[in-house]
């Protein structure tokens, strides 16, 4: 390791540039993974914390993130007659424009039954949930971005609503949830008899599978999912739309990191080929020279990763301050996995560069 360090330090400017490049690649990877985690959690947190046993939607609709489900309130009346069901909570999702003075932004407006509270905000961070028709709960990052404060009023169509609470876990990156009463949502959409889905609580001791089967028989034109399946459907939907993009960018970051590192290590080998040739003559053991290259790669990765980690946390603060809707989530596991990934890429770079070592002949010292 000492020799690897010395060889690297002999070209400080080149080392600086390489560490800079690899650091940025690691920052990019850390940032994309944390965005993914943030979006993945934010997108399905509402579903995860919905405190319901079953989701009933229009037939052929498997999720609420990228599916449109339209059901009649009459379906709810039928559902209430199913003996295993304890409660039926209708929810209506609308993409609607919220205005405040000069600001105008779209939110995923969620109308829910205020009395039961099911289908409402999963976590209130400031204020309270709605208790009246002229109240609204906004997503925290939405409120931050558009400078909406508790007690202020926003306008949806012709209705003025007072902000009474801010919620968390309701930021789906491209859109944020806002919560109003079901009655208000009906007024906004203009069709009082419509809902998107029903959230069902099954009576204690009753079988979920049996209840699903009964609903399928009693309420035609609907699909029923237990909570876990519905959550999984939404995660799958979110991942299929979002993950490939993130993974592609992260993969590009990884490739760039490997190229930068391979380039530096290869240049170092070419520049030091006479030194390496001399070491071969002097009896360097077989693993010695590859060991130097591997240690060089590892030293660069470790230093870059430490710098990247510091930069990453600073960058997250800045980005979230500028664009609150970009929610990131970082865990130790995530950081650990990124480090392992960077280490693997470092090894690959060392391996690619080592091929050069085989073409160094001891007698080159005489050239």
């Amino acid at each position: 390791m000492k020799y690897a360090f010395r060889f690297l330090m002999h070209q400080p400017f080149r080392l600086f540039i390489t560490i800079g490049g690899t650091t940025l690649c690691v920052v990019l990877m850390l940032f994309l993974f944390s965005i993914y985690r943030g979006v993945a959690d934010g997108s399905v947190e509402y579903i995860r914390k919905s405190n319901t046993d079953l989701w009933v939607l229009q037939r052929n609709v498997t999720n609420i993130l990228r599916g449109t489900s339209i059901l009649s309130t009459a379906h709810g009346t039928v559902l209430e007659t199913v003996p295993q069901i304890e409660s039926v909570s209708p929810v209506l999702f609308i993409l609607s424009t919220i205005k405040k003075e000069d600001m105008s932004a779209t939110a995923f407006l969620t109308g829910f039954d205020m009395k039961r509270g099911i289908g409402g905000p999963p976590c209130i961070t400031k204020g309270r949930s709605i208790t009246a028709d002229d109240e609204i709960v906004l997503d925290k990052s939405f409120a931050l971005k558009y400078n909406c404060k508790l007690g202020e009023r926003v306008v949806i169509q012709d209705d003025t609503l007072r902000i009474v609470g801010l919620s968390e876990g309701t930021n789906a990156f491209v859109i944020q949830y806002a919560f109003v009463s079901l009655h208000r949502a009906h007024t906004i959409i203009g069709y009082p008899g419509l809902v998107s889905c029903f959230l069902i609580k099954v009576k204690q001791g009753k079988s979920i599978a049996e209840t699903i089967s009964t609903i399928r028989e009693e309420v035609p034109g609907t699909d029923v999912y237990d909570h876990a399946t519905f959550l999984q459907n939404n995660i799958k939907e979110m991942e299929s739309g979002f993950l490939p993009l993130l993974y592609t960018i992260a993969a590009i970051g990884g490739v760039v990191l490997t190229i930068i590192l391979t380039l530096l290590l290869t240049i170092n080998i070419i520049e030091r080929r006479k030194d390496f040739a001399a070491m071969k003559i002097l009896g360097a053991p077989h693993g010695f020279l590859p060991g130097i290259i591997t240690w060089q790669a590892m030293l660069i990765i470790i230093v870059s990763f430490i710098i990247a980690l510091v930069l990453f946390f600073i960058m997250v603060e800045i980005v979230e301050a500028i664009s609150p809707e970009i929610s990131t989530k970082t865990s130790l596991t995530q950081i650990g996995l990124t480090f392992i990934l960077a280490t693997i890429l470092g090894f690959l770079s060392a391996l690619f560069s080592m091929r050069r070592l085989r073409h160094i002949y001891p007698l080159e010292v005489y050239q």
Partner: protein
Amino acid sequence: MKNVPVVQLCDVSKLYLTDGHTTQAVRNISLSFYSGELILVLGPSGSGKTTMLNIIAGLIEPTAGNVIIFEKMLGQYSDIERQKIRAKYIGFIFQTFMLIDALTVLENILLVLQFTGTAPREARMRALEILNQLNIGHLSTRYPGLLSQGEKQRVAIARAIANDGMLLLADEPTASLESIQGFQIIELLHLFAKEKNKCVVVASHDTRIVQFADRVLRLTDGEYFKEDL
């Protein structure tokens, strides 16, 4: 004193094939090298001196003939064994010194001691001892780039003798030095051969250093004639 030779060349020839032409670098050489003597291989550029040193070191295979090193035919050693022999029993001095400029003088010597498997603490003590013996102890923390030519060659010698090997091969050790420095270096090698009972083979075109050699082997176009002093 001259008992078992350190290295024996038996009818050794080396042919190089370049661009369809064959060049005879070394022709039918039979020689024995013993410990305690300094052998000067004298000849002009291209006479095959370096090729001969490289054959002795096992770095290149002869086209014909046999090389016996440490009582065993060179061909019987595996690549790993040859590498170990070079690390433990052979010291090298190059015309251009070949010191590693990214490492300090001390580290250059520690490097070869690491190749021999010497424990770090012991290696450090030995390296400092050799540097002091050669009166360059004060240079241990300096980088080779900051040394004079003479100092560099002394460091190269220190590196070559660090492994306390039986055989020391020096290729044009005085070529990059001024006369006085050159004499000092050869004197040092001569002393090393005598005091430590080592076999020192010096390849050079410099006739001024003949006086320090126990034997002079004149090489012309790959052939030699022996001249005992």
